[in-house]
């Protein structure tokens, strides 16, 4: 079902991916997982269950906030949205991730 090259998402990275996914607007848990998988062209497998501890952790930290709403076919769902501090955090997390990825790339290219 999943491509053999798919990688499990590390915890810190999962937070970053969730924040980035929520940037355009609020979403519920399942949709966040689907979106991450879709955007990464199925390369990233998010352990679906691990989304929820991560979401609650981010909510605790004040980076996202949750609100109950209804889905397209009228079902009760908890929608998560970025907060102001969350947007700031996303910017910083993205910068530090790119620094990290760039550094690894430099080493790989130079070796």
């Amino acid at each position, binding site marked *: 079902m999943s491509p053999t090259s798919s990688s499990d998402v590390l915890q810190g990275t999962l937070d970053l991916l969730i924040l980035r996914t929520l940037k355009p607007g609020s979403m*519920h*848990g*399942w949709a966040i997982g*689907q979106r991450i998988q879709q955007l990464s062209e199925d390369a990233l497998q998010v*352990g*679906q*269950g*691990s989304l*929820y*501890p991560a*979401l*609650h*952790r981010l*909510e*605790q*930290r*004040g980076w996202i906030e949750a609100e109950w709403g209804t*889905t397209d076919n009228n*079902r*009760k*769902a*908890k929608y998560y949205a970025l907060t102001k*501090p969350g947007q700031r955090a996303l910017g910083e997390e993205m910068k530090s991730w790119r620094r990290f990825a760039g550094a690894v790339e430099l080493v790989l290219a130079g070796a």
Partner: protein
Amino acid sequence: MVVLNWIRTRIRALLVRNRMDAELDDEIRLHIELETEKNLRDGLSPSEARRRALVAFGGVERYREQARDVRGVRPLEDSWRDVRYAVRALLHTPGSSFLAVLTLALAIGAGTTTYSVVSAVVLNSLPFQEPDRLVNVRVAPKERSFSGGGRPSTGPTAKPLAGRLRSYHHTE
């Protein structure tokens, strides 16, 4: 701001623990449903669709616990459970519980009393310059011995003696 938020969520988590648990259950249930429906659209049989949804989720109970841990009330919940367990255990053997409480009560009582006495007699010395050289002069009628009776010579009784008792440094 973040600290306030942290405290507020924790208090809320404690007060409305059951509601938050129910909300988390709703969230997880919806997730499994949506995943099952996606699998159905992919042409799987209903039972297989649901099975794969549960597998993809990866252990409902495990992640439910983790999500609850994030709320940070687990230690409080656990210690409340400990207290209830202790009370139940004590009620189970009322005789020995009563004895234990009685022993503690007597021991604490005795300890407090002893300390109060020692504190008054030994630790807090009398409010005089050299308390170890203090004497009490009593005035007694001629026919009675000095061993007992008589009134302590304080105030008016002591005044006339003041000048005459030369062996004493000071009288009052």
